[in-house]
């Protein structure tokens, strides 16, 4: 078990390094740099003193060879220092730290909603004996996956803010302001949870052990929840791990639509400004959240399925 965790942690470090390197290369490949972008945006191009630009570029180290830049940045990043954001001059880490709580609230709430609503939908759809209801419920997830997030957001705002005045349309204030953005973000996520869980529930319900349970005299609810659901939850759990990445990405759109402060907005701004240090910080940070969630999920597997830990022994057992 300990060896497994150590191995997984080493893998996580590898993933973070890869995320950093790939984002660095991509940003380096793009034309221009933050200084010229700032200069271009800030004033009429003719008025900027090329010497000043060169000085700024030198200050930020953009004039050094790529390899040297990479090595320097990587060395500092490994110590948790991503430098200062070019556009604001504030340290990247504190910019992210300020934005993080808002986004964690949003994605956390969205994940909770996605699992509860999506899971509930899947359980209900596979439990009901009414054919039409099952068909109806099972047709919802594909719909949820295919509608664009911003459109769902606008629809919700239109209905619940402007017409019904139940929830505020934008801003960061309080749990009430969280409802609509979290719901928006939860729609595509929950739909995918529902799709996978419904599918694996149907598969599980077809297994021989379900028949054994029914032969014991168990009612359908017991068969569904105590026997099928736990077996079916594993694929759904894997999907949840992948969806965390999607939630972080989705927060860019949702935070923009609802004018919420947070990581998504920071990302959008950083990309627009070609703020390389900030973008790098966002990428590595996002990867960190993703990797951590998936590590936690992998450690939860053995608790749900006792066979997972021994998977590596299977070959020997078969011999």
């Amino acid at each position, binding site marked *: 078990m300990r060896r497994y965790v150590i191995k997984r942690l080493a893998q996580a470090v590898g993933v973070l390094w890869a995320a950093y390197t790939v984002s660095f290369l991509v940003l380096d490949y793009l034309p221009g740099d933050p200084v010229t972008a700032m200069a271009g945006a800030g004033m009429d191009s003719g008025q900027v003193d090329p010497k000043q630009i060169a000085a700024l570029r030198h200050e930020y180290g953009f004039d050094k060879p790529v390899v040297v830049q990479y090595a320097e940045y990587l060395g500092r990043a490994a110590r948790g220092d991503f430098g200062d954001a070019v556009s604001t001059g504030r340290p990247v880490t504190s910019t992210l730290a300020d934005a993080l709580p808002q986004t964690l609230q949003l994605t956390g709430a969205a994940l909770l909603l996605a699992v509860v609503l999506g899971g509930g939908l899947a359980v209900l759809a596979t439990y009901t004996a009414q054919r039409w209801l099952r068909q109806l419920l099972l047709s919802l997830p594909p719909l949820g996956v295919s509608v664009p997030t911003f459109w769902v957001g606008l629809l919700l705002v239109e209905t619940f803010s402007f017409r019904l005045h139940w929830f505020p349309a934008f801003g960061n204030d309080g749990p009430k302001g969280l409802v609509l953005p979290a719901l928006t973000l939860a729609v595509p996520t929950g739909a995918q949870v529902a799709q996978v869980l419904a599918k694996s529930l149907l598969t599980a319900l077809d297994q021989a*052990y379900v028949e*054994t349970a029914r*032969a014991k*005299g168990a*009612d359908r609810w017991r068969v569904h929840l105590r026997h099928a659901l736990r*077996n079916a939850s594993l694929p759904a759990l894997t999907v949840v791990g992948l969806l965390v990445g999607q939630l972080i990405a989705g927060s860019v759109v949702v935070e923009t639509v609802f004018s919420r402060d947070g990581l998504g907005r920071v990302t959008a701004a950083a990309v627009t400004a070609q703020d390389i240090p900030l973008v790098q910080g966002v990428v590595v940070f996002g990867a960190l959240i993703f990797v951590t969630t998936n590590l936690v999920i992998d450690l939860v597997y053995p608790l749900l399925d*006792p066979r997972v830990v021994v998977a590596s022994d299977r070959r*020997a057992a078969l011999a």
Partner: protein
Amino acid sequence: MTDERENGEDVTTPLLEIRGLSVSYRTRGGTVEAVRGVDLDVWPGQVTAVVGESGSGKSTIAHAITRLLPANGRIDAGTVRFGRHDLATLSEAELRTVRGARIGLVPQDPTVSLNPVKRIGDQVAEVLRIHGLATRRSAPAEAVAVLDRAGLPDAAVRARQYPHELSGGMRQRALIAIAIAGRPELIIADEPTSALDVTVQRVILDHLQRLTEESGTAVLLVTHDLGVAADRAQRLVVMSQGKVVEAGPTRDILADPQDDYTRHLLASAPSLTTARPRTPVSSPEAQTAPLLEVRNLVKEFRLPRTGERPRTLRAVDDVSLALHRGRTLALVGESGSGKSTTARLVLRLADATAGQILFDGTDVTTAKGIRARQLRRRAQLVYQNPYASLDPRCSIGEVITEPLRAFKVGDRASRLARARELLDRVALPSAALERRPAELSGGQRQRVAIARALALSPDLVVCDEPVSALDVSVQAQVLDLLAELQADTGVAYLFISHDLAVVRQIAHHVAVMRAGRVVETGPPEELFSRPRHEYTRELLAAIPGGRVPSPAPETTTSRGPVS
């Protein structure tokens, strides 16, 4: 209605009385009538066996009784009277008070019938909890007691384990525990031991019999194995194509079968018939060098580290064998005996730890790359499960010509001609070339697998349990085919089987394996009539059908019981 063919036995009312039962499945291709107008009685305290081949509807009946049919199955007509109830029309809620409490079910495949994520004890305790037979506090201890009663050793330890930590036999005991936990009046056992080794099968059936005799529980035993039915049941119900063709006391039916199908079934049952002299001992005598020679072969697998020192498992332990051209050498043993591993080593699908493998005089023990490929061209394999060993996306023609394509033999036209010829050899119409494996029956698929193995005209074909997944009558046909092909082509078979009865029909030489070692070798006649090793005797005694009084009149030669 109560007494039909009773011989002055318990002539009260039957415990279970099925009348005019019809069950159908709705499938994409239309409605399939699986069971048609079946009458069946089970008397209290008696074992009634339903026998038939796959597709005869026997399993459907077992499931229809407690209405555990798959979602597309439906009872179209008939009554299932059990005590005061008609189970066919009972409400779902009332049915639940019957299932588990008054009727227990022992399912077919112990490896998949237990919930993999729940502890054994909890799964047994669940029955007690559902029917209010134990409280939350008393259930765990009760469950251990039931497991103990079902004959599971170290029941208290096992109760805390998960299904994958138990062997197939132990899992089946756990399932028996689930079935008997509610002290039911009837146990429905659906092929309860078909997935288990013969010796385990015997022990488990013995135990089930003792349990039910002690408690006076009636048993409905569903089985494809006439030998098992003959040994265990007082009454037989023979089914074919959804209908009951014959029913009555076991003794009467075995001694004097009335129906053609019953006679056919009796004649094909390998455990009930004697060796048929169909495999002519081919001309070249043992003077010549053997085609395949295995010397002191050892295969070790590393086991997961638990303590300080690494552990290994000797799957094959100092095995020496010789197989001549045109002959059949059978490796017999239970699962885990190392017979399949030995075959894999011979085909160079696994590396030997020590020892030597000589194929036609050349040492192929460590053959790799081109040399291993050359060996593959001359040594082919027929797998156990014809349902899984043919690529479902390939046409039969593609399946058969694949070895030819792999070795770049001939052109398109000549390969196709060869495929036709091979199909003809295995007695399939050439129209089958265009079909997909899914359109063929199990026996036909195994014929295709044999045709594929013969495509390159190999010297050796390794047959790994080639008939275990087939119905008995189909088994006999496939064995006939193998013998015929051997006589025509002079191919040698390394024949792996757990079934001594099958081996007796086809092998020229038998090696009995146990725990990686060959414990006894010899010609089958000798081995079966005068077994020297204790384990061989045990295996022979475990063959079901040993208690059959006399073989069916249709069989060619008569033979006394094995034990």
